[in-house]
């Protein structure tokens, strides 16, 4: 397919940050070409089906040799030079996939095989339910008053998405090695059976005090630099309540300074009471829906989309400014180029990039880590202990948000990596949550499938002395819960490119849109 020869902006990679930039540009009338080398939207932020993620793992382990052809240099004028796009920066590595599911038993004895099949999740049965899975490469929770919710509402992109509140927050009690519910609303506190009435009052008091900013800043005096735990002790909070607040509310380590911890507390509290019982909401069908929603807005405002399409070359002029890109042997003029790090030619980047490594894991299991009588989605933070080096975020989702078939749960774990070995970092977590004993009567769920991988995070937001101008490199997903970093990076790129334009103003609803031809008809009628 022949594309237009000129675009204001070419975006490569359909991750969240790139998609926000693309949508914002198209929304203010810029022409946008949006490409992605993958056959699906989302890049490292995608949601994949069961077979897709299996393929994804395999592909990572057997690096496919690039079949890109070098563009023809003869088209270049004397003042232009071309950047080779054959080798891109790699962000995901060290992927190991383990299939625990039962193998289909051959029905030799003439017994009814279906009976067994219904109860047990074999690999075949998982594959049969392939389309029911939406497995996030980048699991996220949205704070109800966080920046992503704000931007979705402000831009009216929320109309393309559906959400459900996270149903429960959990807390891991070290002593009893069990997960308990964290009361996070007034109703939760009221019906909680684990804490006494006096504790309830102390907890509610503390929370109300925290909401009153002027009041709490006075009380914090003297504690700012001291560990958060000391501050909590001074408030008469019992040990259990302290654990609740440190891990579930502030989501920090207990030695974190009170000042930093209170940032987390405020963020948590300000998001309470907007949508559900917890301060978080989750997109239905996986967080891969979020970049797609931005792409959709971009397309509605005239953006052009091509998947399975990558750059063959980037043409820069003598000032090292991007003037054209070459894709599929077509030379396309562009004013700006935005590329995701994983789809950026290595030679555009500095020799040495400083990065941090995250360890991530996806577990598919046959039951919830804390069984309940209704469909739940759960989140908790495991504090570092003898077995875990860094605190681990754990999110369990399932049929409640339509990302797995009934009875099957997906558990995501992620943390900062100590030794660049995701499996070593996260296997202890799996052992806490799942049953590895193969015994029939364990209360813990059994693993059906798992995969571990490491991901490099490079902060590209200051664009490290880019060798070429008018080009922006976008950071991969960082270790955060919501999309704050991605949004601020997208906003920064947008305002550098188009400093006078509004960032994602409200998009009109369909009934507010009139097409020019209709208007012409109407005015003609009026004249007669």
């Amino acid at each position: 397919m022949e594309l237009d020869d000129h675009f204001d902006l070419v975006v490569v990679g359909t991750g969240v940050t790139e998609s926000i930039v693309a949508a914002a540009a198209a929304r203010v009338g810029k022409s946008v070409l949006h490409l992605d080398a993958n056959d699906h939207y989302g890049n490292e932020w995608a949601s994949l089906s069961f077979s897709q993620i299996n393929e994804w793992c395999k592909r990572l382990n057997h690096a496919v040799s690039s079949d890109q052809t070098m563009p023809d240099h003869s088209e270049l004028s004397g003042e232009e030079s071309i950047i080779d796009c054959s080798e891109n920066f790699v962000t995901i590595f060290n992927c190991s996939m383990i299939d625990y599911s039962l193998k289909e038993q051959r029905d030799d004895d003439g017994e009814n095989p279906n009976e067994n099949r219904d109860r047990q999740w074999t690999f075949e049965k998982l594959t049969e339910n392939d389309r029911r899975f939406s497995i996030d490469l980048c699991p996220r929770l949205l704070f109800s008053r966080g920046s992503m919710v704000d931007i979705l509402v402000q831009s009216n992109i929320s109309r393309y998405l559906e959400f459900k509140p996270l149903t429960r927050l959990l807390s891991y009690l070290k002593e009893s090695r069990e997960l308990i519910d964290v009361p996070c609303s007034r109703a939760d506190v009221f019906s909680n059976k684990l804490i006494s009435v006096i504790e309830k009052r102390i907890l509610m008091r503390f929370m109300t005090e925290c909401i009153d900013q002027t009041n709490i800043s006075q009380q914090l005096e003297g504690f700012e630099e001291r560990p958060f735990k000391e501050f909590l002790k001074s408030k008469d909070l019992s040990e259990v309540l302290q654990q609740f607040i440190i891990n579930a509310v502030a989501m920090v380590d207990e030695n974190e300074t009170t000042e930093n911890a209170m940032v987390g507390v405020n963020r948590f509290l300000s998001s309470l009471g907007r949508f559900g019982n917890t301060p978080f909401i989750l997109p239905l069908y996986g967080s891969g829906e979020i970049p797609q929603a931005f792409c959709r807005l971009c397309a509605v405002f005239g953006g052009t989309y091509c998947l399975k399409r990558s750059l063959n070359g980037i043409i820069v002029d003598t000032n090292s400014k991007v003037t054209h890109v070459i894709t599929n042997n077509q030379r396309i003029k562009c004013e700006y180029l935005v590329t995701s790090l994983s789809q950026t030619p290595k030679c555009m980047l500095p020799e040495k990039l400083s990065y941090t490594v995250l360890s991530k894991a996806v577990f598919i299991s046959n039951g919830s880590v804390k069984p309940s009588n209704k469909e739940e989605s759960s989140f908790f933070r495991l504090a570092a202990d003898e077995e875990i080096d860094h605190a681990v975020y754990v999110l369990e989702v399932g049929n409640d948000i339509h990302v797995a078939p009934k009875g099957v749960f997906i558990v995501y774990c992620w943390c900062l990596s100590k030794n660049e070995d995701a499996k070593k970092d996260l296997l202890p977590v799996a052992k806490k949550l799942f049953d590895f004993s193969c015994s029939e009567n364990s209360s813990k769920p059994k693993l059906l499938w798992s995969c571990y991988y490491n991901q490099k995070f490079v902060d590209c937001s200051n664009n490290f002395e880019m060798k070429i101008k008018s080009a922006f490199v976008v950071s991969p997903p960082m270790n955060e819960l919501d999309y704050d970093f991605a949004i601020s990076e997208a906003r920064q790129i947008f305002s550098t490119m188009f400093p006078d334009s509004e960032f994602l103003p409200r998009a009109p609803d369909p009934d507010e849109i009139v097409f020019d031809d209709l208007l012409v008809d109407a005015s003609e009628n009026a004249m007669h």
Partner: protein
Amino acid sequence: MHGRLKVKTTAEKEREKRIEKEEKCKHFKAGLDKAFQMREKGDNQNALSLTAPLLMTNPDVYTLWNYRREIILEFKSQVQCKLETETVETSKNNSENDVKPKDDNSNDLSDDMNKSKSDETQNEFEILCENELELTSSCLLKNPKSYCVWHHRAWVLQTMEKPNFKREIMLCNQFLEMDERNFHCWDYRRFIHDFAKLDINEELQYTLRKIEQNFSNFSSWYYRSSLFTEAHIRGVLNFCDHWEKEYNLVENAVFTDPNDQSPWFYHKWLLATNHGENIISFAESIESNEISLQKVIYDKQNRVLITVFDKSTINCPYDVIDIEFENEVKSPSPQWFSALNDYSRIWHLTFPFQKPFQSITLKCTNKELPYEIRDSKLLFPVDFTADTLVHSFKDNDLLNDSFERKSLKKDQILNLRCLRDMEPDNKWVNLALASIDNLDNLKDLINLDPIRRNYYNDQKSKEMCINFIKTMDKCSPIGVMKSRGLTCLYFGDALIHLSFLDLSQNGLQKLSVAFNELILLETFILDENQITNISEGFRLPMLKVISLQNNRLNSKSLSTLNKCSNLRTVYIFGNEIGENNEQKIPFEVVQEEISVQDLQLTYGSNKIIQYL
């Protein structure tokens, strides 16, 4: 360029909206006019289908609902008419058949036909009602808080032959899911429950679920309390077994959010049931239709007979019978006077018989009363050694209830005190403690919640009155409640026997009808109060002397004392009352100051001096 999108401007959108609204308005008005015309003409054909869409647009036009009810009732009476004629016809047929040679088969057949025919007619009516229910549910979706729609639905349900209560409860569940505090829907749910006698345990479970979702829901707490009362009365459960659990529930709520008033009301109710033991008397005293005599007081000196009932009544249901002439009442029975203007618990008469007697007989006469009288005839002996005779038949429940301090378990009280210490500014916990702990909490409350200081002062006065009644010498005609901070008088019926009452140095602001209960009072001392006003209805039949020194009365106040027919002297030193009073007053107004001691000495009758 074609197909390019363009966003409508706000002005365009507003214009569109305005036109749409005007169109709708015009349409609605035309429909309404037509419906009213039809109603006037009595032309009811298609009226139901005409008014339905109007009500869907605006469910709150109650006239249209009334119109529909008229039509439905008319239809119902037609159906009944039809059914009756059919039965008449059937029986006619049958009687004809009797004469004819018997043909069993044909007889059965015609019976069946008649039956199915009447079923059909009946069905038609049920379908009409079903449609009505459907209409109300779509109107409720439009306005879930419409008084007339909920009322209409309840009416239809009562009019129907076979209402489906399960569906009604489902409907309530649905609406309470949308808004758990929709009290219209809670009202309707209670109506369904009363009407259909639903499973109490299921309903209790439901209220619990709603409370767990959001305990700031007074409707749910209230429904819960009335379900428990009903269950206890019907013997479904013993509330005493559930009290502890309920207390625990409400305790959790008040500790979670002590500023929410809904659970505190439930807390108060739980306290009042006294661990569940009083749940019945509480309910009974409100609901019972029976009236009974609590006590009779006879004052020998004034020959006044006073009856006190447990409820207010429009006239005294008894007559006094001269025992010697029981069967032939010679003199016309004397007239009873109400302590208040008409409705009153207390009635008195001046005894007609001069001669000495040993007993007094009260007999229920055939007065038309909306109550049942417990005892149709009462006889009690007269003790001639006492000046004032008090004969009690039944305890005053309200007073008895007040005598008992509300009790809680030790740890429950400790928890409440702990809550008060944590939340010293919370009025609810102080109020709860005031009812079980002591009166000091009321003082705190006046500072905490000055808007309701009069209420707290009255509560304090109530406590004072109770304490006084508890400790008073029941034979003494003298009552002294000096400087107790009284703002009003409670339980006047327990003080009827007093002929001398000293309420000086209190905070009384008004001489209200509440004092009218003191029928035998002769000397009333109210010095150093804040009285600005004497109520129009204030009337003490035996009052001879009243001292109102150092109050805030003005010249107009005195004339309202006219109704006290025996009043002789009024002391008004220290008020803003001018010298020359043009109004004619049948009593002496004394401007000079007089001490209480002098008053006692001057006006104390023998029996008072005896006690002084």
